[in-house]
Structures are given as C-alpha cells and as structure tokens.
C-alpha cells in the first residue's frame, strides 16, 4: 500500500508545468487534489515515473461567475464550489451535485479539474458537465484548444486529453430562463460513487410547453451519456405525469448498463428510469412554470409499492 518511487516536480507556473509535460509525456501524471490518483498509486495500479504536482499553480485556482456561466480553473477545490453562494444562485445544479461528491475531507482537497479528468463514469461532475454541455479548455506547450464535454469523454477513465496537455479551465454555461434543474443519484452509501446519477435540465416557453431538455446519466457505461431520444420526446409537449413517465421509460430503454459487483444491469436500468422520472418532476417544479399535477402523490405511491 505504498506507491512506487517517482520523481516529483512542483512547477510554479502553467508554462513550467507544460514544459515538464512535454518533456516527460506518457511517463508523467499530473497531481491535483490526488483524491483519485493517489489511491491508484497506493494500490500500484498506476506507477508514474514522474509526478507533476500542479497545486502551486494559483493561476488555475480562480472561480468566476459571469453573464454566460461559471468558469472554474482546474484547481478550484470542490468545497469552494459547494460554498459559493453565487454558484448556488446562478447554477444551482452544480451546487446540488457537488454535495454528492465524496465527503467533506475529500471535497476540501479534491479539485474540479481532477474529477473531470479522472473521468470515473460514476463520478458526479462529469455528468453535470455533459448535461450543461460544458467547454473544456486544454493547454499544451504548443497551444490551446477547447472541447465540448461529449468530445472530452472517450471511454472508461479515458478522455481526449493528450499526454502533453493540461486541463486549465472549464466553462459551465447557464441555462435559458425558466429552466428547472435536478441532480440526483442512488449510491450504496453516503458519499459513494453513484450506481446511477442523473443531471437534468428542463426549460419551458411562455405557453408552458417544454422548450429545452437535457438528460445526462452517469454510472451506466464507460462515459456519461445523454438520453437524446427521451429529450426529444419532451420537446414542444406540455408536462404531464404520462409524458414524464414515458420519457423516463424511453431514457431507460436507450441505456446499456453493465453488471458489476455493485449492481446488476437490470437494477441500474430500473433506478435510471425512476431517477429520471423524479428528476423531471423536480425540475418542472423548480422551473417556476405551471402548478403540480398530482405527480408527487403518485410518486409516493410507487415508492411505497
């Protein structure tokens, strides 16, 4: 349970870090909060020859809320997002999701960028990034480029980031007006990775029909997935118990969950459907649009069943 030896660098600027990445490439790992990387190193599942500790890069530690959205430097700690009243007011789905990440001591140290780059398919932040169509800004000694969340995630624990690149910041755009939100998940224990996580946005136009829908799920396959068919099935329709029930069924049918030691594929599909249905109702309520239609009572009934 001790990591293999490595050479340690603690660059003090992004350009210094990028030069180290270029020099050491595949043999190097970037250390941010270390809440995912260090356990893997302790188990010797990962044995980097070189560790580039970016905790000294204060230029990556700023959190900004602007007109267009929230822009977080890769090194912003998860607890900073959690405590930001500005984020809670302007992008509440992010505040809601962050509380599901680990435990206080994990969030104190864990970073936004670290969680996004580690790309655990059951982690919360990647699911939110996909739901919000977040933009990832990558930098290398050669230059910079930005990728959409769905381009960034390429497979289980895998991203489009090249070995000489560093995630420097992420931009999470605000949703259109009258958009409700919900992040919810089911995990075995408080703070565990989700069996299934859902990040959902639901927007309405003036006549009360759905004008905007984003449904992202985590814990299902190798990467966070969007339930595109279910999203389309909602557009232009007025919300009803039937509409939401059917959309949740469509979302669950479109998934290809896997069996693992934590849950069977069938169970994951089942909870995905239940979570999407509940999240649609919660988002509708929060959108400030329309009154309820007795959905809460019917949900209580099926929880009791």
């Amino acid at each position: 349970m001790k990591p293999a030896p490595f050479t340690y660098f603690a660059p003090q600027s992004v350009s210094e870090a990028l030069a180290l990445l270029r020099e050491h490439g595949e043999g190097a790992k970037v250390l941010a909060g270390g809440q995912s990387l260090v356990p893997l190193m302790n188990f010797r599942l990962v044995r980097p020859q070189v560790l580039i500790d970016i905790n000294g890069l204060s230029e990556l530690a700023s959190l900004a809320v602007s007109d267009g959205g929230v822009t977080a430097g890769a090194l912003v700690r998860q607890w900073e997002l959690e405590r930001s009243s500005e984020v809670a007011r302007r992008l509440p789905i992010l505040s809601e999701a962050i509380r599901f990440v680990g435990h206080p001591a994990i969030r104190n140290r864990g970073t936004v960028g670290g969680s996004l780059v580690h790309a655990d398919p059951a982690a919360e932040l990647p699911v939110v990034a996909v739901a919000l169509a977040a933009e990832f800004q990558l930098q290398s000694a050669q230059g910079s480029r930005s990728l959409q969340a769905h381009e960034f995630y390429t497979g289980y624990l895998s991203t489009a980031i090249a070995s000489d690149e560093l995630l420097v910041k992420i931009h999470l755009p605000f949703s259109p007006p009258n958009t409700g939100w919900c992040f919810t998940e089911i995990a075995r224990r408080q703070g565990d990775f989700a069996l299934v996580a859902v990040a959902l946005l639901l927007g309405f136009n003036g006549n009360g029909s759905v004008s905007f829908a984003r449904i992202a799920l985590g814990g299902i396959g190798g990467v966070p997935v969007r339930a595109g068919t279910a999203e389309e099935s909602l557009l232009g329709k007025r919300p009803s118990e039937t509409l939401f029930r059917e959309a949740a069924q469509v979302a669950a049918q479109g998934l290809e969950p896997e069996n693992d030691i934590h849950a069977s594929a069938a169970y994951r599909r089942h909870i995905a459907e239940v979570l999407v249905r509940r999240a649609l109702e919660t988002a509708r309520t929060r959108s400030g649009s329309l009154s309820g239609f007795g959905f809460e009572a019917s949900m209580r009934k099926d929880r009791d069943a």
Partner: protein
Amino acid sequence: MPDTISIDLTVNGVACTGSAEARRSLVDFLRIDLGLTGTHVGCEHGVCGACTVLLNGRTVRSCLLFAVQVRGAEIVTIEGLSKSGPLHPLQQAFQEHHALQCGFCTPGMILAALELLKENPAPSEEEIRVGLAGNLCMCTGYVNIVRAVKAAAEAMAPGRGGIPE
C-alpha cells in the same frame, strides 16, 4: 539510497523539519519521521477517514497527501487538541458518552467533528451523520459517536466556555 527532499512544516503549532522520499505519505511522515502516532493509518486509499488531519484549517486524508506537498503548511493532528491539561470538549464528550470502543477511528472522528462544529455549531443528528459519513467506525459505535458530538456542540456553544485554544 533514494533521493530525499527536505520538508519544513508546522505541526500543532511547532515548527518541524524532516526529510523524506517524495513518495512518503503525510501520515507516514507524521508517524514515522515525527513520532506523532496519534494519527492512525487505516485503509491507505482515502476511504476510512482514520488518518484525517487538518491542513491549513481544513480536514484532509493524510494518506492521500505526500509529505512534500505540505512544505510550509500548518498541520493539526489529534495531539494538537489538548497539548497539556484538560481534554478538548470533543475528547471529553467522546469519553463521557463511550463514543470509542477500540479507538482506532477516534482521532479522525474527532478532527472531522471539529471541522463540522466550526462550520455548523449546532448540527442536527442528520447533519452530524452526514458530516461524519466519511469516517468509518469498524466497531459500528455510531450511536454514541453522534451523541458525543451533540454533547460537545452544547459544551462548546457560546456562553458555555467556547472552543479552547
């Protein structure tokens, strides 16, 4: 002989110096190099919370930090809560409420509870349970742990002596 790196930091208010390989975890550095064995090593992969310490005032898992990363930082371990004289109210409450059985999780529990009470001086039972959910007690003595934290919150409330230094 592998390369070692010199490490200066403050632990429980005392300036300390040591040197270690880059791969030395903070918890091993505290226990082996500094002889502060109050911080316990449990799972060594960030799950059990036994090795919780304060880094610049916030709880962290000391098994997931390398000692070289905390050069210049201030660390507080369980030994820092009551250096001499009376126990800290949290320690006192753990003793009075029989909130430790084997005692292995206790240092981490107390430091996690300390941060919780600093941010939420009068937590509900549920808030205590969520706040301590990252600290596992393999004796499963959670009921008394929650009771002790509640009692400590009352003892530490303003007008009741407050938080001792």
